[in-house]
């Protein structure tokens, strides 16, 4: 079983390497309009400038990593150009080269979010992660996975639902959530009824997000879960959590 999972991971790795290795693809060509475009030796602000591309010459954009673009000049020199410098280049038809920047406007309106949280689920310590897909600047489909570790039971939670950001333009903006999910409860052996069970849940909640810098924001939220059990009474659990997230 172990060797199987290791082999699986290796296969996955090999799959992921294929696009990185295959080089035959068409690249975007942009033209320098400033006096020159600086090329750095690495994707970071401290790496030295080793080459410049003069005005009206073009570069091919090979790929992007964080705020840096790997480019190839007409003479075949490859180097890294910063996002700030690339904003001043133009496409072949003269229109400016635009791309998503990861700034305040990106915070207002973006496609994906990923984040991680620490908090409490029904009184137990919670570790959780989420990702979301935004339909527009206000409405997003969101999935969250969490593990809670308590004195009397451990468990795993999975939620899927909709999130509605009330005023996306605000730096500190509230949002509302509604959705459904599953909770897998593993009571510790010391309890009277130590039955492992998986139950369906429904939740409603609210939270706030606060833009920090670049692509980062803080997020804090409260969810009120209703757990549908097959016993006489349904259960309730409150979830509080706070964490970091980024958008892209």
């Amino acid at each position, binding site marked *: 079983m172990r060797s199987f999972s290791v082999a699986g991971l290796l296969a996955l790795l090999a799959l992921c390497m294929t696009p*990185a290795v295959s080089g035959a693809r068409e690249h975007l060509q942009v033209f320098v309009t400033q006096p020159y475009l600086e090329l750095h030796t690495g994707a970071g602000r401290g790496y030295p400038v080793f080459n410049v591309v003069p005005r009206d010459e073009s570069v091919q954009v090979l790929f992007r990593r964080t705020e840096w673009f790997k480019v190839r000049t007409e003479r075949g020199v490859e180097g890294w150009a910063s996002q700030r410098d690339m904003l001043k280049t133009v496409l072949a038809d003269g229109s400016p080269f635009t791309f998503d920047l990861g700034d305040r406007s990106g915070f207002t309106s973006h496609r994906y979010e990923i984040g991680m949280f620490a908090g409490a689920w029904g009184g137990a310590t919670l*570790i959780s992660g989420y990702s979301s897909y935004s339909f527009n600047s206000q409405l997003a489909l969101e999935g969250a996975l969490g593990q809670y570790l308590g004195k009397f039971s451990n468990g795993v939670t999975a939620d899927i639902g*909709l999130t509605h950001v*009330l005023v996306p333009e605000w730096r500190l903006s509230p949002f*509302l*959530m*509604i959705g459904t999910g599953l909770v897998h409860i593993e009571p510790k052996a010391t309890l009277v009824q130590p039955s492992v069970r998986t139950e369906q849940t429904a939740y409603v909640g609210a939270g706030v997000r606060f833009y920090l810098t670049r692509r980062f924001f803080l997020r804090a939220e409260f969810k009120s879960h209703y757990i549908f059990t097959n016993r006489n009474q349904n259960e309730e659990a409150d979830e509080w959590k706070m964490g970091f997230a980024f958008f892209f």
Partner: protein
Amino acid sequence: MENGIRVLLLTVALAALSGCASVRNWYHHREEVKDAQAQAREDARQAEQSPDDDTAPRVVEPQVERRKIKVPKIRSTNVELGLDYGALSIEDFGTNPSYGATLAYHVTEDFFFQGEYGRSKGGRTSFETLGGNIQLLTPAERRFTYYDLSLGYNFLPGEAFLGRGHALTSAFYVLGGIGSTDFAGDNKFTVNFGAGYRVLPSDWLAIHITVQDRVFQSDLLGVTKLTNNIEMRVGTTVFF
């Protein structure tokens, strides 16, 4: 009280989720629709009149196919996935080989999010070794499985030189985060912190050396204490 909050939240959520986005500017929207309809009527009238135009009919109908210009997309390579192998020192249970996988997303040139998953196995405590036939844990309970969600910060970025001709970009980084450890039949909330060195032989390949400490509370040996479980590992990752 609890139910009160729930009902209130539910009502507000239902009211808001129905799509404030589409409800916004509804008044202006209606005016826009009116304008568009008026424009359409005008266009239709003009189209009816057009046969009476005295412009000469075209002799040759130009059949120019517009060239569709496809702007190539720029590939983002912010995700880093890899495997690692190393040694994990489990407090009181000796040092044992460990292996795992990491998945990272580089958000900016400085910060990255990282998820780690790894496995190892606890050895025998000195108590068990000295006590002869005593077994504190079953073989299944000795399995040490962890996962973490961490935030990393690249500091001291630089270049490593291989002779005169090659420079490889590199960086030291620090990591910190939370996660869970499954050991001795229980899941423990785990805080981790560590540091590492990453060197990139090519744009898509990286080699890592990481030292990470996983701290969790354990009462396995009678007293509740914080245990430090330090792991050193070497890994290779690919960017895509």
